[in-house]
């Protein structure tokens, strides 16, 4: 009896703990929203940013923070948080619109990246589902497929039917997998970053005397290829590469 009561109390305390964390989060989020509505954007940024600093991840949080940063003129941070929100909820039209708007404010044409046709064809789900959603989807299809196979083994009278069902799940899996793998590749193997300073020189070689290849502006999205001391080899969306000095960017 005592055991049951102890377990019950443990469950209740864990639930309360989570509930109180959620309540704290919501309270700060709504306070930040109120500050934003009163056009106190600096204070709203502080409130949203405090949630991010505590380790919270959320598309709405990143989106609102991006809006607040844009209002105070910090294009780089705005693009950074819109990109983060986009990764969590790519099919959100508001996130997409504001990301495009912020990118359009960036000087130069660094962000004018057009995905090639094969990328659009094979990775068609990337623009609709986040990597977590794709992971759930792949997992569910994989579970369902194997359950269908196992059912076919045990229920011999319906073996053919179950194997057909397993085949359908398998086809769906094959359709989704390229997008999922592409999403993992982009997140894990392509260190994308946003420039945080007004302008920075990208040089041909990692030294101060090297010729400037091109400039990157605040809010430009670049890919970090490798690091060498203070220098980072970066690649622009149009494929141009060079060396960028110092910590002038934030990883998405």
């Amino acid at each position, binding site marked *: 009896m005592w055991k049951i009561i102890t377990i019950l109390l443990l469950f209740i305390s864990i639930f309360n703990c989570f509930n109180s964390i959620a309540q704290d*989060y*919501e309270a700060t989020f709504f306070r930040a929203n109120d500050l934003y509505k009163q056009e106190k954007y600096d204070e709203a940024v502080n409130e949203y940013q405090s949630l991010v600093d505590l*380790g919270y*991840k959320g598309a709405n949080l990143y989106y*609102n923070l991006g809006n607040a940063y844009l209002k105070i003129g910090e294009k780089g941070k705005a693009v950074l948080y819109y990109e983060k929100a986009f990764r969590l909820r790519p099919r959100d039209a508001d996130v997409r619109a504001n990301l495009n708007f912020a990118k359009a404010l960036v000087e130069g044409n660094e962000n004018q990246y057009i995905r090639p046709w094969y990328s659009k064809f094979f990775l068609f789900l990337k623009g609709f589902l986040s*990597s977590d959603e794709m992971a759930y989807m792949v997992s569910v299809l*994989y579970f369902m497929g194997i359950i269908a196979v*196992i059912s076919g083994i045990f229920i011999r009278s319906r073996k053919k039917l179950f194997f057909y069902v397993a085949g359908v799940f398998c086809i769906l899996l094959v359709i989704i997998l390229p997008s999922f793998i592409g999403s993992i590749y982009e997140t894990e193997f392509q260190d994308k970053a946003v420039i945080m300073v007004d302008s920075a020189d990208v040089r041909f070689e990692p030294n101060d005397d090297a010729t400037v290849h091109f400039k990157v502006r605040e809010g430009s999205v670049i890919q970090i290829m490798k690091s060498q001391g203070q220098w980072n080899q970066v690649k622009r969306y149009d494929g141009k590469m060079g060396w960028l000095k110092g910590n002038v960017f934030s990883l998405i």
Partner: protein
Amino acid sequence: MYIKLFIGFLVLLTTINYLALAEDIQVIASVDRKVVRVADVITFTIRILGSQSASVPDLPDIEGLQTKYVGPRTQISIINNKSSLSVSHVYRMVAVKTGTYTIPSLSIQHEGKTYRTRAINVQVTAGSAPQDKATTAEELKRYIRLVINTESKTAYVNESIPLKISLYIRRGVEVENIRYPTFPSVGFSVIPFEDAVRRRASVDGILYMVYDFPTIISPVNSGELTLGPAGIDCDLVVNSSQSRDPFFDSFFDRRARYSLTVKSEAYNITVKPLPEAGKPDSFNGAVGQFEFNLVAKPVSLKVGEPITLTMTVKGVGNIDTVKMPVMGDLTDFKVYDPQVNTQKSGNKGEKIFEQVLIPRTARVSEIPAVKFSYFDPSPGIYKTLIKGPIAIDVAPSEEDQPFEIIEFTQGKAVKREVLGKDIVYIKDKPGTISHREGYLYNNTGFILVQLIPLLGLGFALFYQKRRERFTSDKAYARQYHAPKKARKGLEQAQKFMELGKYQDFCSRIFRTMQEYLGDRFNLPFAGITIEIVDELRQQGISEDILDKLSFFFQSCDVMRFAQSDIDMEKAREMLNTAKEVIEYLESNK
């Protein structure tokens, strides 16, 4: 007759070759003159005596002397019945700069040996010098020369100065492959040359063909600046049989194309800074003579609708220095970055600034005056052109409704909604939040959960295999189930024993052993008696167990036929014996 002559010729050739091979060669370097003036021609000869197959020496570039390899001259001479071979490599050198220059020692390879020439010093002077030939710089200039020229030798910083570099070629002289001029221009910005203009000119009564290369330069610093000397590369083509000029007859032996760099004199320009006195506030650096025009369209509109202000600056001068004209107070307008369109042609140009303004309120009645200031270098004063203010009629917008404009598409008037551009408002709800680091696919728990279906599938496949074996392999099925059945039988026998039902105990334990042995060795139950012990001996069962099995069957027979002899102790002994036999056989499959 011909055969004899041919053989004699071969013998002569062989002898010559033999002599050439047999003797060491001699290398002599010489110049026709050691003291020359600028533009004089020196003939440098390397004579190799004793061979015609020695390598052509590679002459390095010598500062102050433009060198061209003319070619080899071979010679065979027979003196006092002794023949000798020689080759002379001839170079033409044009003195282009005063000073003393050294033609370095050159190495010549022949049959594995290296021969060296001596170094020769040549002095190039600007003044008079002994003249062996009429090839002086002054004379060269009479035939082809390069001149830098500007309209004025004084200018202001950023003023556009038309510059002309002219190549004068005397009539009758053939010149090909004329390249664009090059010249040092420190302190100037220079635009690329326009196409060359060809004309005729008479200088001191001599007719020249002139190629003018026009360009525009702008000084970026003040002070005494130097342009040039300019150089132009071209090929002189001379045919001595056609030439009527002794100069070219002496210069070139026969028709030849000679690469030449014609140099001009340096050209000095005095550049003055823009004066500080009288500089207007609206001055942004434009230098030249310009006109300014301002047009606003439309002038009758609603709040939120755009007005395009077109500011045109055109004229003569440095159009690159023209910046956006200065506009008055525009706080009642939303102002966008202007579009700039530049057109240039030589020293003239036009710059159009298109500025979009959107009135924020209906109170606006005019676009403030726009000022454009520039510095006119001719009189050396600043000038300011003012246009406007322009009266506009701004009506209030219709209750914040998105306004419409009319467009003409394919000849039809269509109304198109113009949408504003800004960010979408914030989200009211917190939405889904997570406190997890990274993404789901690299979460250990998530990955481990993915193993569950695999384990299930493995179990299902194992189950299917076994089920198939039970169906197809009866002996395996019997052997598999034998211990379980035996255990049940023994438990039942033990219950009978504990209840004192020894008759039932006896028949149960006997049947259990029969069934077990039958299943274990795939034999029919009914035929299993004490005789099975002999069969099992052949299968390598230990004697101890076989003895126990014999004891078991004998005891069973005794008990079944003499029930009065059964007691608890005997029954227990039989039960233990049966258990020991079964355990042994199970552990020794």
